[in-house]
């Protein structure tokens, strides 16, 4: 197979020319097969990513190069810093709660007899399957200012009405809640897969060594799952940090700018207000965090690659 195409035939000279052609042809075929992929990545991903950097250095009408002018402009605006804080807060708390809920629920599912696990797993993954824009609509309706089904329950048990999306604090809470609701099942599935891969004998050995339920989790489960936990958190951080759908449908960034994140604000500034360079600048602020997460993921993957 691939070895035939390996270009390592420098020893003999006689009768190798036709083989060389063959070698060339084979790797050419391979290259051609990957060409659509290469074109797609360069034209529609790599180029736009670089183009975003260029755009961020133009003025609003895109006629003049302004260097870091857009960045300087943003640094001076209070709204921008509010959005930095909100983006980080949302991502951190949402990922934290997703990870915790996912971990706990995965344990409960793993705890029950194998027969029933499939059914429970199937039910608990539903939030992940429904397109985010669709499910957020139902949350929007649950949070409706006058018809909120939560407030109806609160009224019945004597609690005051809450303005879920109208008040900055509650709006932020709601955005995080929906984020956690939609993302926790992903953690659940990943953890469950990891839990299944921990050999039963390890638990039995730990029990014989006298480990309590909690010690078993701490000394056996967590170390065995460390890799999966890390990579799931990194993936989720990227997705949550760059999230657009939930905030857009739920609050459109409001009240005022209290729930805007980079993605939604970039959309508002770049597409809706037509200031493409400024929008590009805002979206570029996601890059540092994404880059850090991506580096860690790549390191983890190459590390596992070398273990194999």
């Amino acid at each position, binding site marked *: 197979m691939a070895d035939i195409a390996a270009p390592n035939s420098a020893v003999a000279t006689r009768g190798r020319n036709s083989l060389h052609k063959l070698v060339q042809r084979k790797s050419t075929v391979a290259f051609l097969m990957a060409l659509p992929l290469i074109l797609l990545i360069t034209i529609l991903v790599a180029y736009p990513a670089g183009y975003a950097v260029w*755009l961020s250095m133009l003025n609003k009408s895109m006629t003049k190069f302004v260097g870091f002018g857009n960045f300087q402009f943003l640094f001076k605006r209070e709204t921008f810093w509010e959005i930095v804080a909100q983006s980080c807060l949302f991502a951190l708390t949402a990922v934290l709660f997703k990870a915790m809920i996912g971990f706990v629920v995965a344990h409960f599912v793993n705890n029950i007899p194998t027969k029933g696990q499939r059914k429970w797993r199937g039910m608990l993954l539903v939030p992940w399957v429904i397109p985010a824009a669709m499910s957020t609509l139902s949350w929007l309706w649950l949070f409706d200012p006058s018809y909120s089904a939560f407030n109806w329950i609160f009224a019945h048990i004597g609690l005051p009405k809450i303005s879920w999306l109208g008040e900055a604090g509650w709006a932020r809470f709601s955005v995080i809640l929906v984020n956690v609701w939609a993302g926790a099942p992903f953690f659940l599935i990943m953890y469950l897969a990891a839990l299944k891969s921990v050999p039963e004998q390890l638990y039995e050995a730990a029990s014989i060594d006298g480990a309590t339920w909690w010690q078993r989790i701490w000394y056996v489960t967590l170390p065995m799952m460390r890799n999966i936990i890390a990579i799931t958190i990194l993936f989720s951080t990227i997705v949550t940090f760059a999230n657009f759908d939930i905030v857009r449908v739920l609050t459109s960034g409001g009240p005022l700018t209290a729930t805007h994140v980079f993605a939604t604000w970039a959309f508002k500034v770049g597409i809706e207000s037509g200031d493409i360079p400024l929008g590009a600048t805002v979206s570029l602020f996601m890059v540092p965090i994404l880059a850090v997460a991506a580096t860690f993921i790549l390191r983890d993957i190459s590390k596992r690659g070398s273990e194999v």
Partner: protein
Amino acid sequence: MANAAIATAGAPTRPARYGSISQSRRWALRWSYFFLTLFAIFFLMPPFYMLVTALKSKEEIAAITNPWWVYSPTLSNFIELLTQNQYLIFFRNSALVSICVVVVTMLISVIAAFSLARMKFWGSAALATGVFLTYLIPDTLLFIPLFKMMTFVRETTGIELVNHWWTLCIIYPTLTVPFCTWIMIGYFASIPKELDEAALIDGATWMQTLTKIFIPVALPGIIAATIFCFTVSWAQFLYPLAFTTSTTELVLPVGIVTTLIKGDVFNWGQIMAGALLGAAPPLIIYAFLMDYYIAGLTAGATKG
């Protein structure tokens, strides 16, 4: 509840002298079911509420009866939607875009994955890593430059890309191809090397090895990748929101969000019915192909 049956079936059947252990196990089991039920309520509440609202008439919604229950269920919301031209257009656009993207993605990524996993060429290892890196670049970073690129295309060639549903067929593969290629590389790499050597000796060309050996053998992976691809295309929200505006060009998620919400509060029944129908295709696929769906979901991190 139905759990009771499982609980008794799964209860330990050990001799009585181990009673204390089985006792504590039984309690652990009960607590597990208790909390699982709580979480299931939390996770399933919004879709349930969607359904309840979708079955209500405008009058019932306006009457502020118990919002969690429907007293006189009606299908009028669904009927109204499905007889409305606009909604059917959204649905058609979504279906066309998703199917188109699935076909394009699978063609590109299966062939590329085969080349990267098995044939190798100069730089192929770096490309494999690059593919994965691309998967990590979110849509929210690319939509502005892509939007600008489209206006550039219009200015230079006169081809209008903005506000056409088929433009999405070109854009969506950026979201699906990297991941599908990545997991297909993983599946192909797990096929023993001897299998393609045997095919080579049997006289198969590279293309025949791919179509007659690799694709059938890696079929579970291909199904998982296809499902992933379809659900991502179906659910994509940002690109269509940014690139399409006319009601004839909208896809379902954007169509529902932008056209059905018109300040008419009593229209929520219809909105929920629309959202429910919009969520139906992925849910149906999930219900029937759950194992493949989950395989695709976990493949990104566990293979590789």
